[in-house]
């Protein structure tokens, strides 16, 4: 039924035939067994408990910080004149960016019929949702009085007697991020329904049968249902693709509609989107390489998948690098002294260290992926991808802080200092993210079984 290929390395290039996306001679039942064994094992591995334990303690740290913030007010952060947007917004943009790869892998690669997406899209979508939760946290608590959060939405209230300002990019953000979170959850859940049905049919415990039974909606895999399902999935993908673009575009509008030098530049929308994809893919690689090793999923998440992701990381990294270059060139070409100064200051001013961390991590380090060994050696690419995400965090830091600390009024120029709450919240958000991801690995289908089965080569195909 399937090609028997004892070699796990499927990164060779043979133009005459397609590389198999499922290795180890797995057939349909084999795919199901491989994925379900993670969830069926009696006791999870020790490493899972270790990861969850560490992540959960970080989550508690985050909870304590948020509690402290709510009791004391936003003054516990380092945000102050002139950098009223400090780490919280940096963390927000960072997490939202990471939250882009999931839907992008799912939606755009689906529309482009890139079959290799099937093994990685589920985990990537889950990652998207968890990253968006982390992202939503920061502006959520940034509003100070979180219990009045519903003022952000056009809720008709008699006592407030006013409405949000729809000309404000911050309000666009509210709509964009909440729409994105909702649509991502729909997309993720819809993709999971057939796989949850598999869980339902294999489940042995009563509570499991009830929960997975309800979640699977009574899915039978009927051809008519599949027909509507596939069309609905395609429509969702077609909607999600411009949505992914719009979300980070709108995040970039937060900066670019202003007149602050270094923020107001028209290339921000595509540049932010490319950066988001860049960091998102890096995060997918960072997560999937250990998961693949832990659960023995080398047959499904093959080296080819990882290699492709490395190539995308390199490509988007260069797009981001090109945008840095265009910005610099136009800052000079425009002849506007404020623009020129803003960019000169970024590279050679008092935040030069942040700028050069950004450039080396985002533009220079990913260039190692030109070498085949680098993009086919899992442990090595994880290191590179961690660097990429460090770089992308610094990119948002550079954009936010350098411009604010050197705006039009020299008398208000200052140096931004984060507080320990800022630092703990950033670390704590990783705890939240990892906790959710660890729970996902244990209780939900990590790989889209139904989709992988669809790309297993059939006999007449070769």
């Amino acid at each position: 039924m399937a090609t028997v290929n004892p070699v796990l390395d499927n990164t060779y290039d043979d133009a005459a035939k397609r590389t198999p996306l499922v290795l180890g001679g797995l057939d349909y039942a084999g795919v199901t067994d491989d994925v379900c064994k993670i969830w069926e094992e009696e006791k999870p591995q020790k490493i899972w408990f270790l990861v969850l334990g560490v992540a959960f303690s970080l989550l508690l740290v985050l909870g304590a910080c948020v509690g402290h913030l709510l009791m004391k007010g936003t003054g516990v952060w380092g945000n102050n004149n002139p950098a009223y947007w400090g780490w919280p917004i940096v963390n927000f943009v960072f997490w939202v960016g990471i939250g882009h790869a999931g839907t992008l892998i799912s939606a755009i690669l689906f529309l482009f019929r890139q079959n290799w997406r099937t093994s990685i899209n589920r985990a990537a979508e889950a990652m998207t949702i968890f990253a968006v939760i982390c992202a939503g946290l920061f502006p959520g608590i940034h509003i100070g009085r979180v219990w009045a959060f519903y003022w952000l939405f056009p809720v008709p209230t008699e006592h407030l007697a006013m409405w949000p300002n729809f000309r404000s990019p911050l309000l666009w953000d509210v709509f964009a991020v909440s729409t994105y979170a909702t649509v991502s959850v729909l997309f993720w859940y819809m993709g999971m329904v057939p796989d949850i049905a598999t869980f339902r049919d294999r489940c042995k415990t009563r509570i499991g049968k009830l929960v997975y039974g309800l979640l699977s909606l009574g899915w039978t895999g009927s051809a008519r249902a599949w027909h509507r399902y596939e069309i609905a999935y395609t429509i969702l993908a077609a909607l999600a693709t411009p949505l992914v673009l719009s979300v980070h575009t709108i995040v970039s509008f937060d900066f670019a509609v202003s007149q602050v030098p270094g923020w107001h530049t028209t290339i921000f929308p595509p540049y932010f989107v490319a950066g988001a994809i860049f960091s998102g893919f890096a995060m997918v690689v960072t997560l999937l390489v250990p998961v693949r090793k832990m659960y023995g999923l080398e047959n499904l998440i093959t080296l080819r998948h990882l290699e492709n992701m490395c190539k995308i990381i390199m490509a988007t990294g260069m797009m981001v690098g090109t945008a840095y270059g265009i910005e610099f060139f136009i800052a000079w070409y425009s002849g506007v002294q404020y623009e020129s100064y803003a960019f000169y200051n970024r590279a050679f001013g008092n935040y030069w260290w942040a700028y050069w961390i950004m450039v080396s991590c985002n533009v220079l380090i990913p260039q190692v992926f030109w070498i085949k060994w680098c993009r086919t050696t899992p442990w090595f690419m994880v290191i590179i991808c961690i660097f990429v995400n460090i770089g992308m965090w610094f990119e948002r830091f550079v954009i936010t802080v350098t411009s604010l600390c050197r705006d039009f009024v020299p008398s208000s120029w200052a140096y931004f200092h984060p507080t320990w709450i800022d630092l703990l919240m950033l670390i704590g958000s990783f705890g939240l993210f990892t906790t959710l991801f660890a729970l996902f690995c244990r209780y939900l289908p990590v790989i889209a079984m139904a989709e992988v089965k669809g790309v297993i080569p059939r006999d007449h195909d070769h």
Partner: protein
Amino acid sequence: MAEENTTDPTQGNSKLVGLLAQFDDPDSLVHACDQARQAGYTKTDAYSPFPVHGIDPALGIKRTVLPFIVLGIALGAVFIGLGMQWYTNGGSIGGVSTDESPLFPGYRFKISGKPYFSLPANIPVTFEVIVLSSAFASFFGMWFLNKLPMLANPLHRISRFKRATNDKFFLMIKNADAKFDRGSTEAQLNEWGAVAVEECRQDLTDIRLPGWLRLVALIGAILLMLPPVAIFRAMGMTNRAPRLHFMPDMDWQDKSKTQTVSPRLVNDEFLFADERAMRAPVDGSVARGQLDADPEMYRGIKRDYTPAVSVTTATGSVRTSLGPNQNQQDVPAAAPPAEDVSMFITTFPDEIEVTEELLARGQQRFNIYCTACHGFSGNGNGLVNQRALALAATGKATWTTAKSLHDPMVKDPEKNPIGRIFDTITNGRATMGPYGDQIPTADRWAIVAYVKALQETGIEPPVVVAEEGGAVAEGTTTEPSKTGDGTKPRP
């Protein structure tokens, strides 16, 4: 034929739904579907762990209307998205704007010079509304068309069917089909390559709602009623207790505000015995930058001066200043002859160097602080003075006219040495209030320098016209006790 099969007598409480045939690979399933369609079956369905390519034409499945549903919703969302923004931000048609709406009026505010309804700025939110509505439409549209969630399905009772979500493929020919015949259909299915054929039966007891579920639903419904009942009850009652404060909202802070009562200790005693929350500075403490040790610089009094008489506040001296310089300068101002003019310095203190810059500064400060009464030229005819005189003329107020700085007595360096002018600005004189708190020391010296310069210009003191003079006389006579040296109308 179909009617015969709707109830199967041998199976008592169950109904035959159809025949389920199992296949081991997608190609044989598609092949069997094709055969079934060609054999004339229409009420058929196939079940597979993943969408099998080519099964739609084999089963004769028509394209779903879902895309059109989504398109319709999306077009509607354009109007909803734009309309929402237009309404809430106070858009208007023909001069009638939504902010005049009696219920939930629109809210107008000017932001960065943009119109209330500015299309480019409203595109992003409109786009998000379209995407959100369309996503819901396609997601729940799929549920609706597929009749999901459908948790009770006879197929789930068949243990073989559990592999439909794993690795096996099934074709069901339904009992409801006109061509269905229990025996021949089974034969056909076997002929088309089925690995196994099995009956699918609907257990009629499955359809009924279990009794315990009704009880749970009833209890749930009653419990759900409780919150609204509690809310309505609370709304219909008066309650004098302070409302619950779920969030502190910075309403309570660990500090005492000015002019409030001292915080109390646990045993209900006051923390401060005088029951005031505000504290005076500790005796002998000097605030930063307020030492002011040099009397020449800070008070205009000679360093070597020792008061010959102990001074007390004379009657008629109006002092409102509570500044730190007060006690040193408690000089009776109402009686110039009794005042020891010799204590004042006659030249500028060492720190002050009279330059053009200082004079310019003095002029500027003078124009800010002094001209309201004394006028720009210093002849005592400022706007406040004019207005007060006009009011005094109608008897509505009393007023002591402002002093002309060109008055010979004021000009006289014997009677008014430099230190004394400084003292006048600092502590006031007669009806003139003290300016020590408003004007920094150096600026007061600058004003002194400017006043001296102004006096050198030789501007004649104004001649009070008759009516005004009368008014002044009237005004001054009403309060004779307060007429100091500056109150006599000029002849």
